[in-house]
Every structure is written in structure tokens, then in C-alpha cells.
């Protein structure tokens, strides 16, 4: 029997998702944002989700759409004030969605820590700022640092460029961003890829996310481009 993580239906990708789950969403802005998986999550209908992402969605597609459907109770992100953001802003101003603001590098490192079995680490980022309030402080070599804890997740929704059936992923340009570390941090990382290849076509020197961090894969060969979707005022569902 051969390992084969490839699925053909988005519903199959999301079959284990449950109400109240913590879900990481890859991407920085629109680059690497798994729009089709996010739309699948709308169809799935899971509620009370906690989303960990860099942003809080644009327009009414992808993460913006999921939030608009009121499936999200909390967003943990670095920047929830995107120029094209609508749905998060609406709910936040009405007090209907929670927000935890995390500096972008601390967010990335907390995610990487979760995937690396590191429950907490010290960082100089945010020392002396409002985001350090309530956090343990410690001095190393005369400099002050704060303790930041790992950010784990049940699922990660990820967009990659190419994969084989083992889940060896490569990404395209700056669409890499948070995707590889989220694959490490989630119990199940669920990947949409532009293109599937055979394992012998994978160059072992160039794999960015090795299959050990990947649970399920689906090919979406012509994914929605967020900028275009917003220009066309696409609304999902």
C-alpha cells in the first residue's frame, strides 16, 4: 500500500473540522491565501471558530467571507485593519468578534514554536508596549525580554504551489509566508495546491514543507485571485 494524501473533494478535506476548532489560515494579504478551502469551510458550516492568520480578510471572499458568515468568534492576527477589509471591521465595531493582536514576528515565532514542541520562548519584541502587559519578563545579558507561548491549532488551511502524494510542498514567491510554519503547528494541515506531481519529480533539496507536516492535499489548478475577485465584487456564497 502506498501513502497517498490526495483527496478529490473539498468536503473530504474538511471532514474532521468541528465547532469551536482553532484554525490557522495561511497567506499574507492575498498571497498564499487558501480561498477555495475557506469557501469549503463556509459550506461545511463549522461555528465558533478561532482563526489564527496575519490578516482578517478582504472583501467578501475567502477569510472575509467566512467572517461575514459569523462562523468566527475570535481572530488572532497582527493586522486587522486592511484597506479592503469589510466583514471583520463590521463585526468588531458591533462587538461581535474578538481580536487578539500579536506582533507579526511574534505571531510567526509562536506558530513555529508550536510546530517545534517549544511551549514558550523569550523575545524583545513588544517589551515596554501595551502588548507586553501581563507577560512574564526576564533579563538576559542586561536586556529585558518577555515570555511568549506557542500557538497551536487543530487545523491549518494552506495554499501551496506544487505537491506530490506525500505532501512535499513548494510555494510560489512571497506566497510562502506563514504557510510552512502553519503546516508544522496544526494537528491537521489541509493543503490546496495548484499542481500535483509524481514523487520522483520532487527535488529533495528544494522541498519547503516536507510531507511529515501535511495531512491532506487537493488540487485546485486555477484558484481565485483575491484582487480580481474583490474588483469584480465577488461575494461567497
Amino acid at each position, binding site marked *: 500500500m502506498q501513502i497517498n494524501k490526495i483527496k478529490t473533494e473539498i468536503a473530504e478535506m474538511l471532514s474532521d473540522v468541528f465547532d469551536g476548532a482553532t484554525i490557522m489560515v495561511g497567506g*499574507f494579504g492575498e498571497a498564499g491565501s487558501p480561498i477555495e478551502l475557506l469557501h469549503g469551510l463556509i459550506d461545511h458550516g463549522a461555528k465558533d471558530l478561532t482563526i489564527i492568520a496575519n490578516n482578517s480578510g478582504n472583501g467578501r471572499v475567502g477569510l472575509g467571507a467566512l467572517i461575514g458568515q459569523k462562523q468566527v468568534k475570535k481572530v488572532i492576527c497582527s*493586522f486587522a485593519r486592511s484597506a479592503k477589509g469589510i466583514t471583520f471591521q463590521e463585526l468588531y465595531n458591533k462587538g461581535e468578534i474578538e481580536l487578539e493582536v500579536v506582533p*507579526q*514576528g511574534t505571531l510567526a515565532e509562536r506558530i513555529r514554536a508550536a510546530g517545534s514542541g517549544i511551549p514558550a520562548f523569550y523575545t524583545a*519584541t513588544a517589551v*515596554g508596549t501595551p502588548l507586553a502587559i501581563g507577560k512574564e519578563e526576564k533579563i538576559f545579558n542586561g536586556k529585558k525580554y518577555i515570555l511568549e507561548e506557542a500557538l497551536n491549532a487543530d487545523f491549518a488551511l494552506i495554499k501551496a504551489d506544487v505537491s506530490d502524494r506525500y505532501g512535499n510542498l513548494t510555494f510560489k514567491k512571497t506566497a510562502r509566508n506563514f504557510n510552512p510554519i502553519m503546516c508544522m503547528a496544526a494537528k491537521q494541515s489541509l493543503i490546496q495546491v495548484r499542481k500535483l506531481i509524481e514523487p520522483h519529480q520532487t527535488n529533495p533539496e528544494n522541498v519547503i514543507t516536507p510531507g511529515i507536516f501535511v495531512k491532506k492535499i487537493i488540487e485546485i489548478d486555477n484558484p481565485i*485571485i483575491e484582487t480580481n475577485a474583490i474588483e469584480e465584487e465577488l461575494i461567497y456564497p
Partner: protein
Amino acid sequence: MTKKIFTNAEKGWERGVIASKIANDLPHASYVNLGIGMPELVSQHIKDDREIIYHSENGLLGMGPTPNENEIDFDLINAGKKPVTILPGGSFCHHADSFSMIRGGHIDYCVLGAMEVSVNGDLANWSTGKGIPAVGGAMDLVAGAKNVFVMTQHLTKEGKPKLVEKCTLPLTGSGVVSRVYTDYAVIDITKEGFKIVEINENLSIEYLQTVTEGRVYQ
């Protein structure tokens, strides 16, 4: 304490002039992160006698200029989420590696805007205290970069000093700023106060002091 309000009528340096002053202070072979907005201008003023490598915190080292319309790739964007290019010798990495460059002290210079800079180098530039809080990578940059340069107008749009005794807005970092470039002056943060490196040729030190909270000296 009521803040003094100044009319911004005094002729300060144009943004391009400020940018070129910063550009001249970035040594050859520096790794530099330019913040979104005004700091982006700096890259247009680098002289031919040096090569600077630009880092964008979303996993891009060796960032090049804005692409032509027909070269735009929405998978190649900068931290401001705008389409950019990559130069020969550039590379992509993931977010944790990109912020290792920042947090680990490998970025030689970052240039950011400011709402307030205090006399001890505190910076406030991420939150007015109102609206949706959104910090992005600013706190990581000021805590990690070897040198933090601020590029800003000397006064707010309302005519209030941005260089202050103590920041009133939520901090981005504490004691992090090395140097401030404004339309009125180039100023180092020192233990003795705001040290004037260069003052706008149209202004006196006395005037600069009146539009600056905290001691200014030469």
C-alpha cells in the same frame, strides 16, 4: 499640559530631500527594511557608489522596484501588500525565517514613520488608541534592527511636535530609535537629549527648540 500648536508654514525639506539624507547614511552592503509609506522613497535616492539589499518582512530579501503593469504577480508582493519585483541574488523565505533576520539583529537599518518619538528613543507609530488595533511587524522591527531610523514630518498635521518629552500614544518600542529625520532637522537620540546632526538651513536652533518638546542641542 496643553500642547503648543504651530503653523507648518516654515519651509522644511521636501520628502525627497529627507529621503536622500537617509539614503546617504546607509552604508554600502547594508541590509535595510523600509517601512510602508514615506520611507519607501529612500530606495530612489541610493547613489551608485553603494549596493543596498532591501528586506520585506513577508519573506522577501533582495526586493526590487515596482513592476510594470504587465509584470504584476499577486504572489510577489511586499509587506504593504503591493506588487514588487525581486533582484538577482534575492531569495524567498517563510515568515519565521524572515523575522529571524529582524529579531536576530541581521537587518542593519530599518526606516519607519512615527506619530511620536520621545527624548529617550521611545517610538509610537502603530496606534492612535482609537479604531481597530493593528500592529503588523513594527514592534519586531524596532526591537530587532541594529539601527532604527525614523522618517517623519517634524510636526503633526495639527501642528503639534512629534518629538516629545514622553510619548502619550501606545508605544511601538521603548528606547529603540537611533536617529530621526524630519523636514526640519536630522536628530540623534542621546542621553543628553535630541542632538542636532543637521538643521534645515532656513531654521534657527532656537526655533527648532520651540517646535520640539525635550531638550535640543548641538
